[in-house]
């Protein structure tokens, strides 16, 4: 008899998941936020963003002061559940209209990943070997995400720094969020992209994104590039997709090393989130003056 202690999760609903876990910050989050949230009232609030895809669910809970999803300061917590493993993130956030900052810690327990013996390069099979300690880790991370209106769309950028702990010395780990084999403790990412706004109210978005992930402990880089797209169905609901395959890497991990980040929906919610009449009037006057 063969044990099914890990396989049960992987085989859920009959198929392996192409995306084992929720993706990392894509960078388009603020570029697509609707005016509804921009014109909100400044107040204490509870808010959520829920990403659902195949097959994962990532709710992000926020408690803070300001306008949720637009300009606020507060705390964040994000449990993550996917067929690849379980984890959580908790931290502090400060968001301005053009800049989002966050810092916190993230723990991840993978169902089928183990720590890796250091090597120059890895094949897909290497990260599937059930040898050695389980590849769970605790990452302390800080991130800045910026968004600027430019031409018929938005320019966006993300810079992430990560310090990985709980991994014994002289062992490498598959980092599930950025989908790279990292030599702890340090890891960083820089992403730059442009999201074109199309159609009525710019509800259809199509763009390009590229990113470099630095692996200082391995003295190597991973470069990815690809497409991001979304359709803004309402101020709360967004259908989104992205695929950033690897362009350059010391490893050959296939889809496990690509950012097949999202193919699903994102839902935003916040308490007392009706628009502020004063802000609406001011925005209307400003628009009239521009015309």
């Amino acid at each position, binding site marked *: *008899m063969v044990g099914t202690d*890990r396989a049960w999760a992987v085989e859920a609903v*009959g198929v392996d998941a192409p995306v084992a876990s929720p993706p990392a910050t894509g960078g388009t989050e603020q570029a697509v936020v*609707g005016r509804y949230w921009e014109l909100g009232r400044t107040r204490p609030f509870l808010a959520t963003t829920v990403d659902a895809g195949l097959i994962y669910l990532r709710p992000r809970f926020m408690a803070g002061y300001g306008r949720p999803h637009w300009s606020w300061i507060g705390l964040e917590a994000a449990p993550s559940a996917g067929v690849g493993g379980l984890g959580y993130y908790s931290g502090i956030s400060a968001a301005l209209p053009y800049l989002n900052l966050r810092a916190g810690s993230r723990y991840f327990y993978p169902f089928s990943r183990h720590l890796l013996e250091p090597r120059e390069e890895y094949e897909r099979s290497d990260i599937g070997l*059930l040898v050695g300690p389980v590849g769970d880790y605790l990452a302390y991370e800080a991130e800045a995400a910026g968004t600027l209106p430019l031409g018929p769309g938005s320019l966006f950028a993300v810079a992430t720094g990560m310090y990985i702990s709980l991994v014994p010395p002289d062992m490498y780990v598959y980092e599930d969020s950025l989908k790279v084999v990292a030599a702890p403790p340090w890891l960083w990412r820089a992403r730059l992209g442009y999201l074109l706004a199309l159609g*009525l109210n710019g509800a259809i978005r199509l763009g390009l994104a590229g990113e470099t992930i630095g692996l200082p402990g391995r003295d190597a880089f991973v470069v990815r590039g690809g497409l991001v797209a979304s359709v803004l169905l309402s*101020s709360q609901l967004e259908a989104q997709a992205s695929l950033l395959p690897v362009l350059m890497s010391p490893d050959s991990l296939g889809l496990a090393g690509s950012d097949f980040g999202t193919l699903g929906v994102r839902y935003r919610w916040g308490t007392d989130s009706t628009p502020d009449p004063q802000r*609406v009037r001011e925005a209307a006057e400003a628009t009239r003056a521009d015309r």
Partner: protein
Amino acid sequence: MTQDPSARDLVWLYSNADEYAPSDLTGTPLPAPELPRPGGGSPRAWDPRWHAFSTGNYVLTGIGFGVSLASSLIPAVPDRWRTTNQLDEWGRSNLSPATYDDARWAQDVSDVLLSFNIAFPLVVDSLIVAYWYRKSPDVAKQIALISAEAFAVTSMLQGTTAGLASRERPYGRDCGDSINPELDHCKEGRRYRSFFSGHASVSFTMAATTCSHHLRHDLFGSPLADGLTCGIALSSAATVAMMRVVGKQHYLSDVMTGAVVGTLSGVGVPWLLHYGMADSANELSVQVDPTGPGLNLSGVF
């Protein structure tokens, strides 16, 4: 929501949660009038002769996913089914690369296409086309629920069969030989879930439900576009099935069975439980009702 009737050109400012308007972080959008816009399409109505999703369908969907999850706990029995036939051996020898690592690309292709097959009726047909473009929330809801129901029925059948059959996958005989025996694919129970293919059955289920929705609701508003969408969905499902053989995950008989079961589920669930044959003189429909500890299936033929 604030209203200012004198400023109809500024109506976008007053967007509530049900509408979308860009914030100041977006430049001036390209108009692109030929692209779909919210409410730009003619609405679709739910015909009262069709069976809308009811309690029985929710129960069936819940049972389907529940049994599928539970079936993952069925322990594998390695020696239960290792025999193959000539067709399976031909496929294994002639359609797959020599090594397991060389076959990984095919697994990735099947994963990506599978996710598109699953997402299409749920995200594109239901949310984007029916809910957003055609402003038909009732139809959008029914499309999403019916698709999930067909997915659940297929998952239940596939999960249970794969667990009980415990057939070894094509790569299994190479574990410990050309494949490292410590690989998760060798050590975990998934090695013995070859019959029948989950990827193939789910892909064909979702492709067939896509075809059913487009046929019934004329979602793209053109027989050519709707037919093309159906054809692409089925072609994608066929590619998924073939890539499972190329990727050494399944034998030909596994994916062929999966394609048949998936298609039957993807056609049967929408038409027998919901759409029926309301346009024809002889109505054909099946009703699902929760009765006591089980489900009651009743039909009109």
